[in-house]
Structures are given as C-alpha cells and as structure tokens.
C-alpha cells in the first residue's frame, strides 16, 4: 500500500548509520585528545564543543544553508550528511570523553610496564575501556537522526525525506491512523535497538554519564 514509507524508513536507517559512523570516526580522536589534555583546558574545550547547541537548531541549520551558498557547494545528500554530523557530533564526543577521562591511568601504565607497545595499549586497554561511552554516543546519535526533520528538509530543499518528516506529514494531513502505525514501527525499532544492546544502553548511558 505504501512502499515509499517503508523505503523512506530504510533510507533513514542508512543515513543514521553513516552519520553515526562519521560522528564516531571524527569524534573519537577528538575525545581521546581532549582526555589527554590538562583537565582545565579540556573542560573549556568540551564546553566549546557543546556550546553551539545553545543556538536554536533551526537557525543553525539555516546558517548552514547560507554557508553552503557561500562555498558554492550544492545542497543535497552531501549537505545533509554535513548537517547531521554537525548537529550530532557533540552528542558523540561528550560521552566518549567522559568515559575516557574516567579511565584509571594506572591501568594504562600497567599495560605499558607489561611491555605493550602504544598500539597495543590503545587497542587492548584504552579502546575497550571506552566502549560504554561509545555505546552511549551511538544511541544518542542513531535514533534521533532517523526522527529528525527540518534538517533534511532545509539542507536538501525537500528532496530527501527522512522518516520523522513522513510521520509528521501524515499527522498534519489528518491521516492519523497511518501516522500512528508509522509511530509504532518507530517504537518497535527503538525497542529493538535497546534489546540488541541488551540493557547495555542503560548501563552505557550511566557510565558514559550524559553530561
């Protein structure tokens, strides 16, 4: 009956995956570098990373549209990805930074003393210890991207619709039953994500300490 709604859902999941991955790839090194810094300096920088969120996201997105205009870059899929990463990067950096900062330096020293080279120290000690922060960051980025609207509308001139927009349009156009069904699909997805995490999300969010 409505294949396009399902396709939009799958597309949104794809966009959310790419955004989450990009945020992770960009955010992890940043969080790592921050956690290696002097606490006072790091705290100031972390605040600088979070500060843009105090400006309404719609205004920020409109400014992003203007930015693309200046750089003569076309609006579309690429702009959408930039907008998403731009909006959600702080949500990735913060929990990872928190869990990295809580890592006991003695553990790292122990690993070094036991003869691990820097690469081994990172992959065998630091990275596994920051998994809760990563999990928390992924959760804070993945689902919100699927349900975001406005960002996709503005940055692709309505060419790309994400699931949140579809849901909203249905409600606005008085198709309440269909909208409610779509909302239920979304809720199932939420349940599935948290099940896949098998309670890990809760723990992760706690340990990652959302701010």
């Amino acid at each position, binding site marked *: 009956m409505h294949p396009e709604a399902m396709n*939009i859902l799958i597309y949104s999941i794809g966009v959310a995956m790419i955004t989450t991955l990009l945020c992770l790839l960009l955010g992890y090194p940043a969080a790592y570098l921050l956690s290696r810094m002097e606490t006072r300096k790091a705290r100031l920088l972390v605040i600088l990373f979070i500060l843009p969120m105090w400006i309404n996201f719609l205004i920020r997105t409109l400014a992003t549209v203007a930015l693309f205009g200046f750089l003569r870059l076309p609006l579309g899929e690429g702009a959408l990805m930039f907008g998403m990463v731009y909006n959600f990067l702080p949500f990735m950096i913060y929990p990872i930074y928190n869990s990295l900062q809580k890592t006991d330096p003695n553990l790292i020293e122990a690993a070094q003393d036991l003869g691990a080279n820097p690469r081994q120290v990172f992959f065998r000690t630091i990275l596994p210890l920051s998994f809760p922060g990563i999990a928390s960051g992924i959760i804070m980025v993945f689902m919100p991207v699927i349900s975001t609207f406005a960002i996709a509308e503005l940055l692709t*001139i309505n060419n790309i619709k994400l699931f949140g927009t579809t849901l909203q349009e249905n409600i*606005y156009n008085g198709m309440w039953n269909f909208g409610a069904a779509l909302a239920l699909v979304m809720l199932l997805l939420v349940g599935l994500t948290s099940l896949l995490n098998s309670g890990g999300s809760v723990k992760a969010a706690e340990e990652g300490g959302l701010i």
Partner: protein
Amino acid sequence: MKTLTHPKYLKAVTLLMLMAVAFVFNACRESKESRKKILKIYNWADYIDEDLLKEFPVWYKEQTGEDVEIVYQVFDMAEVMYTKIAMGKEDFDLVCPTQYIIERMLKYDMLLPIDRHFGKTGDYLGNISPFLLQRMDAFSVPGKNAADYMVPYMWGTSGILYNTKLIPKEEVETWACLWDPKNKGKILMKDHYWDVYNVAAIWGFYPEIASGRRTRYDVSNDHTNEDIAMVEKQLKLLKPNLAGWEADFGKELMTKGEIWMNYAWSGDAVWAIEEAAAVNVSLDYVVPREGSNIWFDGWVIPKYARNVKAASYFLNYLCQSDIALRNMDVSGYTSALGTTEIKEAQIDSSLSGTVNLSYFFGPGNDSLQVNSIQYPDSSVVERCVLLHDFLDKNDQVLEMWSRARGDNLNRRMILMIFVFVLLLVAWPVYRQVRKYRSKHKRLGLQ
C-alpha cells in the same frame, strides 16, 4: 545553612511547591471565566499589521462599549491549523486558512455563520470585490450560503517567479519550461499538493483544453481516477528536473541567483522581487499562457468559537479600506477589497503599461497604472481557474502525491546497510570464535 535542614523548613518548602503546582492548575481554570472578553485569532505568520491587534480593542469599545482582549497566534501550515481544530476542538474564534480548507470546513459543518448585526456600526463587508464574492459562491452547499460564512482577505495568482538575467521571458510564459530538460536543476516547485496538482493537470491535458474537448475547470476539479493518474505521470516526469521542493525558502534561494525559476504565489513574488532588487538581482513573475489558478485566503469562524460577536466585528474592522491598505503594506499580498480608496492608493504613475481591472474595481477601470503582479490583467484572469478542495478524494490524492514525490532509496544505500548489518553480526561471532580458539590453545599448551 543549618536552619534550612530543620524539618519545619522542609515542610514549608514542600508546601510552597504544592502551592505552586496548585497555582498553575488554577491559572488555567480561571481563564475560562473571562472567556467572553477574549478574542482568539489564528493566522498565517506575517499576514497582518500587528499594530491593529492593539487598535481593535479601542475601536470595539467605541462601537459596543464592551472590552475585548485579543489572543493572537500564528500557524505555518494550514493543515496544522485544521488538525488542531478538527481533532483538538480548540476554541479559536477566527482563523484565516486558504480557500480549500475553508471549503472543507464548510462542507464538513465546521463553521459558524458571521453575525452581521453590527448595531450602529456600518457594515463594511460590502467592500469585498464582487469578483471574489462570485467566486466564493462556488463553495456554497445546500442550505449554506458561502457569503454567510467567510470573508475573503487576500488573493492572488500562481505562476512562475524567474530571474530575468538567466532565462528569457518567452521561455517561462509556458509551463513547458518546467519539463524542459535544459533547465534541469534550476527549478523549484512548491511542496504544496493542492495547487501543484492544478499545474500538472493543466499541462498534462493541455491538448484537450486547446482543442476545446475539456475546460481547464474540469481537468482541475473532476478528480477522476484517470485525472489523478495523469497528474502522477506528469509529476514523475517533472521530478528529475527539479532542484527541490520548496516549502519555506524558495524566495531566498531566488535572491541568490542559484535558482532560475520558482513556482510561486503572486504575493510572495512581490516580496521576492523587492528583496532581490536590494541585492541587484532582477526577478519577475509571469502567469503561463496555458493557465493557472486564482486563490484567496479568507477569515472564518470555526464551530468551537466562543466569541462570535467580537469575531464578526473584527471581520468588519478588517474590511475598512484604510485598515486593508495597512495589511497590504505589511504582507505584500493583494487585499480582497474593491473600493475606490484601495484603487487610488495602488496607482503608481511611474509604472509603464496599464492593467484592465474592470472585473475587480467595476466598469470603467480598464486601464489602470498599477502593479500587474498584485492586480493581474483581465486577460490573465480569464485563463485562471477556481480550484476546489479534493474533499473525499483527499487521501487518494495525498497517496498519489507521496508516490510522485518518491523516496531516495537507491542500490548504493541498500548495499551499505547490508554491509553494516553484516559487520555488526560478524564482529561478535568473530570474537567468540577467537576466544574459543585461544582457550583451546591454552589448554593444549598445558
């Protein structure tokens, strides 16, 4: 610090908090008592001179001796307004939707008649141009005369706003320019199914219109399954040519010269042309020769309204020429009033060319020097149809619209998701296998 921890103070704090909660709940109950003195207006953003909202209570007091306080709220989509009233039964006294929502509301019995007993106050509703009254009458349903329920506010045409430096006028004088592959990526369409349907229908059936087999009115208003299929076909052909579907920001992109053509409403066009001129971009507006539509936004009193008297007086207030002129200034749109004052205020001798407006201002006004975008010539009006709401076909058209707009799922994306999921599944399996192996190794060594 110590004293604060005393249980007595804790109790006081708790009590204070409870009182605060009670106060909030009380505040919302109290508002119901004085409801008769409140007029709730729900309007498009930037669509009225907001100083009028302060001046009206003074005027109302002079006319009736009663006090009234205006509660003003704006909406961004007529559909949101409709949802809030139809589903939420919210008690707005006066709303200003576009004609198709008005038609739907009248048809589904969601409107109250305007109270035209104005006492000693003059009845200014007669200032509305007969041209719009006559069009509005098409919305009457058995037992309900449209004129008793709605007051047109602003009106205009739909057409193409274009950049005069980038595309010649001859090309945009026909809808063909939207489907022309050489304009690919330079066109913005409105994300608004109600009137885009009309463009696709008129273009798709133009051969039949030209040969006289069907009228423009029929192709746009029959809503038969074949008509809807034709619109879908045309929209799907149109889609690859578009830079995007504009809901909010088409006008802004036009002023930056990135987009050549934009399907626009005349009032927005006036706004955009002015704004573009400030940054030396030259825009113009044209209604293509195949035809388009004339629309109006109007004021109505929804069923759940609770202050019909003040609402009716406010409508009467808006229908005075001087007030209408102020609203035109603010919004850039064209007032529905057809009075001499309005006409004289619009004449600008610096404009070249004249417009035949006898259809709007009455006989004898066949060559006025006014802005031909705000006031289209009678030759333009002849090819503009009146559009009805889709009514019970609405869901079907919305589904068609959603199919035509389509989705962006492509093979690349599916492949990527597939790889992702595969990795997510493979990773734990791989780790499990490694764990198992190393365990065996260790056991073997021992």
